[in-house]
């Protein structure tokens, strides 16, 4: 494990180093991409001056809102559908093909209906995330060991306390997988729609900088988005792994 982690850092470091050299000696000209050290420095400057704090706040709060919607509605819907097997079997083909559909293609339609504001963006992010939460909730509920349910019955728990005390805790690792997807998808949805058409947010600022050939803003912001999404995912991934190991599932 240690060795692979070390190798991974070496590979990433080597890649960044290579980019740095290529940019410095002019194989990649500076109109295309500034050297990575320059990007990191620009990002530092942007964070220190707080120039894009408003944009970052808008993006993160929209993504957070979409995430909460996706998880709460997704889990509730998943529990509901799980209780009704015929409905679930009818929905299965929809779930299976859902991610083939370019959800962002709905964005223009949503703009026409709701106007160019936060609502269409949040809806896109929600639509991207919610089905992953539903599918993983169903998966988690399927895998609750029957023994636990029988124990709950023996303890004469009613439906609600069975759900709270037995089913949900037992399904948590799978729910967390859904949550992880919801985080990634809500960021992708918000930033993607900001990028395509919007008036604020980090995605918009990146698109704006691109249109103005402003590489010293564009690249740092891209780096920032990558850092944010990768670190959130890594934290959730570690937590997920811990839970799975504790259950002896991995």
């Amino acid at each position, binding site marked *: 494990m240690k060795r*692979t982690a070390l*190798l*991974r850092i070496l*590979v*990433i470091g080597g890649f960044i180093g290579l980019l740095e050299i290529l940019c410095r000696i002019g194989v990649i000209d500076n*109109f*295309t*991409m500034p050297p990575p050290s320059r990007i990191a420095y620009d990002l530092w400057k942007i964070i220190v001056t707080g120039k894009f704090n408003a944009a970052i706040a808008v993006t993160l709060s929209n993504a957070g809102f979409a995430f909460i919607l996706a998880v709460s509605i997704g889990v509730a819907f998943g529990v509901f559908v799980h209780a009704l097997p*015929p*409905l679930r*079997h*009818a*929905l*299965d*083909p*929809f779930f*299976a*093909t859902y*991610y*083939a*559909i*370019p*959800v*962002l*293609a*709905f*964005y*223009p*339609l949503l*703009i*026409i*209906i709701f106007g160019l504001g936060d609502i269409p963006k949040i809806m896109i992010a929600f639509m991207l995330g919610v089905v992953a939460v539903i599918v993983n909730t169903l998966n988690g509920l*399927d895998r609750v060991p029957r023994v636990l349910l029988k124990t709950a019955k023996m303890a004469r728990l009613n439906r609600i306390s069975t759900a709270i005390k037995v089913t949900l805790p037992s399904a948590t690792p799978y729910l967390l997988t859904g949550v992880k997807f919801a985080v*990634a998808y809500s*960021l*992708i949805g918000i*930033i*993607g729609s900001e*990028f*395509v*058409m919007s008036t604020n947010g980090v*995605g918009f600022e*990146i*698109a704006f*900088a*691109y249109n103005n050939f402003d590489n010293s803003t*564009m*690249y740092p*912001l*891209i780096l920032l*988005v*990558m850092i944010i*999404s*990768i670190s959130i*995912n*890594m934290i959730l991934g570690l937590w997920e792994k811990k839970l799975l190991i504790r259950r002896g599932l991995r």
Partner: protein
Amino acid sequence: MNNSNPNWQGTALLLVALIALWQVLYMIVGEIALRSPLETIRFSYELLQKPSFWPHLIETAKAFGAALFFAVALGLAIGLTLGLKRLAADVFEPMLVALYSIPKVTLYPILLLAFGLGISAKIAFGALHGFIPVSLFTINAVRNVKPIFLKTGKVLKLGRVGMISHIVFPAAMPEIFSGLRIGFSLTMIGTVLGEMFASQKGLGYLLMNAIGLHNVDIIMSITFMLIVFAAVMSGILLMIDRRLHRRI
């Protein structure tokens, strides 16, 4: 996935309900922002008759086809290489997963600067979306090939190419196909998304252009066509996928 007894009647019923919901929504929102299902289908049909529409459709199809080719080729190459090498897979697989989870739209400007404004940037962007699932699934598929097959190959003294083409690939095919199916969808999403941002041609461009013109007909019918195409293709691929998996 639990597919012991699919409920096709229920699925059909839900589909009808969905279309009914669309109709009701149209009746509430009105002509300004939506079109009824019937009007959308009629306008889609009219759009397909128009000669001015075809260059856009062909452009998107070309970009998508090329992107799919690169996504599959790159994905298979990465997947087969990493799948056969444990250490390399351990090093690179988390990176691919991380790449999967970041909003790749933000990388599009970089591709635009590298490839220029045109079809090649779209192709690169589509391929960037598609190659990740193909390689991740292939890595797993190759890893899960039964050791006895590999041993048989070794006994027969197969070389690297023979090993891949005669043992690894056929044995891993069903799972690789699952990756191809997801890669297909993501490549399409990537290609259309690329067109929506900066492009002068293609369905994504028409879609964005129509917002500016407030042309609800075009928005509705292109969205409709894209979704029907994606759903139908994904349904077909899913059927093949299930059949391949059942064979084992």
